């Protein structure tokens, strides 16, 4: 379980905090979606939840990040391994660029942990199997499609065997096929017990994936609850978030005096 409590974070060199009064909880096996207009603090929340802010990028954090009951304040970056990992939207900056095959790429993380060779090999096999990309093992990373690269980047995170995974817009740069691939992979990941925090603009995707959704506006969380409820909140558009297609359709029908349930029955 990952808990952010009373968190404010100010980037180094900036006067105002990017996020403030933030409380967020992520339970095991849960997928939580994070939505909001751009520049409202979603990426900052990801960096804080992953511990990289402030451990890697500096800045000032007030409040606490607690993972499985242990507080993460003051810990070095490499102590985060196994607890939480973060993935970003651009697959090419996450691949190391020095691996000659996908297998090697995914193995880099476990190698850095100083594990013994048999353990490294097992972790790589497990990570590739979890995302169903074992058939890409021999492929050179340069010859992967966008969606495949993103899956390899996520597999590289999984090989660290974190109990919590934070993903900042994993499908932003992918085509519909790539988005489907990643969506399916994340679903099976959560089914296996990993806790996921995903930032996305694609509310249709979050509608199918997430158990809970939180809305970020102006540096803090303004709504947090079951996905169905939050995505149907009429205030979403005011927060700069586009509701899923089914919600927009139902709302538009009601606005015209039609009842969605009857009208949409086949």
């Amino acid at each position, binding site marked *: 379980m990952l808990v952010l409590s009373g968190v404010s974070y100010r980037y180094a060199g900036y006067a105002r905090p990017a996020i403030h009064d933030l409380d967020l909880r992520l339970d095991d096996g849960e997928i939580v979606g994070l939505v909001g207009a751009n520049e409202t603090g979603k990426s900052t929340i990801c*960096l804080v939840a*992953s511990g*990289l802010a402030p*451990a*890697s*990028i500096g800045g000032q954090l007030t409040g606490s990040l607690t993972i499985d009951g242990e507080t993460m304040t003051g810990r*070095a*970056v*490499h102590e*985060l*391994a196994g607890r939480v*990992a*973060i993935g*970003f939207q*651009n697959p090419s*900056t*996450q691949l*190391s*660029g*020095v691996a*000659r095959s996908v297998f*090697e790429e995914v*193995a*880099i*993380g476990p*190698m*850095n*942990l*100083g*594990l*013994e*060779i048999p353990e*490294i*090999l097992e972790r790589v096999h497990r990570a590739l199997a979890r995302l169903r990309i074992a058939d890409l093992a021999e492929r050179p990373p340069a010859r992967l499609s966008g969606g495949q690269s993103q899956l390899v*980047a996520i597999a*590289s*995170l999984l090989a*660290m065997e974190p109990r919590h995974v934070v993903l900042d817009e994993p499908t932003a740069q992918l085509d519909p096929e790539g988005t489907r691939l990643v969506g399916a992979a994340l679903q099976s990941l959560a089914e296996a017990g990993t806790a996921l925090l995903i930032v996305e603009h694609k509310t249709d995707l979050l509608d199918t994936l997430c158990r809970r959704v939180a809305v970020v506006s102006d540096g803090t969380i303004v709504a947090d609850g079951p996905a169905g409820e939050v995505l149907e909140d009429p205030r979403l558009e005011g927060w700069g978030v586009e509701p899923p297609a089914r919600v927009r359709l139902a709302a538009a029908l009601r606005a015209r005096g039609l009842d969605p349930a009857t009208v949409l029955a086949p």
Partner: protein
Amino acid sequence: MSFYLTLPVAVSVVLVSVFTRAGTTILFTIGPFDATLQGVDFAAQIVIRLLAISLAIGLYGLTTDPTALVYDLERRGVSPRFAFVANATLQAVPSMVERATTIQAAQRARGLDTEGSPVARARGVMPLVAPVILSSLLDVEERSLALDVRGFSRPGRRNLLWSSRDRAVERVARWAMSAALLVVVVLRLSGAFPQLV
């Protein structure tokens, strides 16, 4: 390739030393310049040394896989972070080229004339160079976060998946070359090679 690179240097050294070196034996004369035997000797020594260096570099390039070298160094005790930086640098050029190509295309699409007058082309330097630097810096920020997540900052050794085969032939060759070097140095110092002039 390294041979071709030394050619201009070699040619200019030869021209300068053959004709300007003070010496007693004059071979031939062109205008006010005398070509001396001492000049030829000096030039020959320099050229041979240049050749030796460039051939050695060329031989290294032909026989050594740089990535394998870096990992082997790591196995012998060099820090894993050095190994990564060295390897990443080796791979950096193709990605820099690709980045620069995209940037150049984007600026040409905005009317930057890469085929115009020198003045016009000089004005094009900032729009071509600045985005390369800025986007590389942004890139580096995100890359280093991604590396942190995968444990690159963890102190200590790691067990590498790779191992290089050290064949008997290669081991013998290494010993033989070291021995040959020793022999040559001893002979040179003991005066077994006479001066020509």
